[in-house]
């Protein structure tokens, strides 16, 4: 991959993520069975398969257009909170990317920030609520700070993946305050949040794609 993120890179990222979700479907479902209704793995798998089908049918020319296709597919095929949240995130990333032919490290950081803010707005969640937002926020801040410090795209996204991977276990002792796990009250303590884990996987795919 070059210095900038192209449409082909973003499409490859989502293919990589779709495969990771398919491979991790059972784990996500198992995590969701403990704190929710046990469908996070199957739902996200269905959505990402549909997104990849759409990309196969017609690969868009800009990173923004790829984000748009994937976001729309997730919104229209997944349902549940995860469809709305991931869909909103990618649609916001699409808007932030505009019609740029490729995204610089700074533009990727800005798109991630818009996506993260979109999750907070759609889910009405804040830091510490023990949702996927905590992972997106930590990863985005890490990417922003690495890029501000002069890191290139690959190093910036690697920092994001590390932050995501560190955040998920840090959230385990928290009590959920938003999302379906919050209905458990104190019983949500001690569990890994399924949306946080699927978000970690996304940031790891993003970092892997940047060095591919």
């Amino acid at each position, binding site marked *: 991959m070059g210095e900038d993120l192209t449409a082909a890179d973003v499409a490859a990222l989502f293919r990589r993520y779709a495969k990771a979700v398919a491979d991790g479907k059972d784990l996500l*479902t198992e995590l969701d*069975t403990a704190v929710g209704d046990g*469908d996070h793995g199957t739902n996200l798998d269905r959505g990402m398969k549909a997104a990849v089908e759409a990309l196969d049918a017609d690969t868009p020319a800009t990173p923004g257009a790829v984000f748009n296709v994937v976001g729309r597919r997730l919104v229209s095929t*997944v349902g549940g*909170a*995860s469809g709305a949240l991931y869909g909103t995130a990618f649609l916001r990333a699409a808007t932030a990317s505009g019609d740029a032919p490729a995204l610089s490290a700074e533009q990727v950081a800005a798109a991630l920030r818009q996506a993260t803010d979109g999750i907070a707005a*759609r889910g009405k969640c804040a830091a510490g609520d023990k949702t996927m937002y905590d992972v997106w926020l930590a990863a985005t801040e890490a990417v922003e700070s690495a890029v501000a410090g002069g890191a290139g795209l690959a190093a910036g996204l690697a920092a994001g993946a590390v932050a995501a991977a560190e955040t998920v276990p840090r959230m385990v002792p928290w009590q959920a305050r938003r999302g*379906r796990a919050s*209905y458990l009250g104190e019983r949500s303590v001690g569990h890994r949040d399924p949306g946080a884990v699927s978000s970690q996987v996304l940031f790891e795919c993003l970092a892997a794609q940047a060095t591919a």
Partner: protein
Amino acid sequence: MKRLYNEPDAVVDEALQGLALVHPELLRVTYRPTYVTRADAPVRGRVALVSGGGSGHEPMHTGFVGPGMLSAACPGEVFTSPTADQVEAAARAVDGGAGVLLIVKNYSGDVMNFEMAAELLAADGVATETVLVADDVAVEDSTYTSGRRGVGTTVLVEKICGAAAERGADLAAVVALGRKVCARSRSLGLALSAGTVPATGRPGFELADDEIEFGVGIHGEPGRERRPMESADALTDRALAAVLADFDAAELTGDVLLFVNGLGSATPMECAIVARRAVRTLGDRGLRVARSLVGQYMTSLDMLGVSLTVLLLDDDLARLWDDPVETAALRWGR
């Protein structure tokens, strides 16, 4: 697990195909985006009622589509909210020019998807209002959580608002009525065993032979606590005590509507036994069961359990409850 499924992935579509084939006079089913509308929609000049939610709760919501109740229902995947484009398409299909009321159960996925649909509809000039049902007393009401789940009261809101819309009430009046029903109604469910999601083939949770889940959600989410199994009467009283404790004590007088809902595997006999005790216990508390609904209306696949809902009636609510309704699952007065 032995079940009358063909392909686990096809259960939602196949159940809808069955519903459409046996009720051609009542409803129409559209696929991709998927929604069910009453056969005579859109009805000009009448407020349209649109609800929806995950599948696996049948007959809710598709079985409540028809004159006197819902104009449209949007079934999602099993235990998964519908998508925003399903809700938007359904609302457009049934909008008769008098506005659309979205009836939403308080689960984060449902709330977000209906909210996105409402934004799309509003941007296009369709008058849209939402009534959010959050009646489950099992969830501690706290500003730090997503709030209470929407359970049995949903059926009562759909019936009563549907009657008002059929009588020609305007959107503001139907919304106000829906919020009134929510304010006067509380529910609690309990499970003796979990439902099994078709795609996974595994029960949502495991309970020992001598355990129950008290305050269970309709997706098998754990509830308030895991307790020892007791007799039907003792469990009924325990559930009613939790429901009644949540009302303002001064409100607890006069006529009520009692809704005893089977969660999928409770037999009609079990529901009747629970209803027997509930009517007596409510009577002991000075509450007369003036209206009732007993049966399987809001299920959780094959969960073995019941939910109890108490609605404080007034003349207006009782009259609207008695109004004619003609749907696959509820019909009277026509």
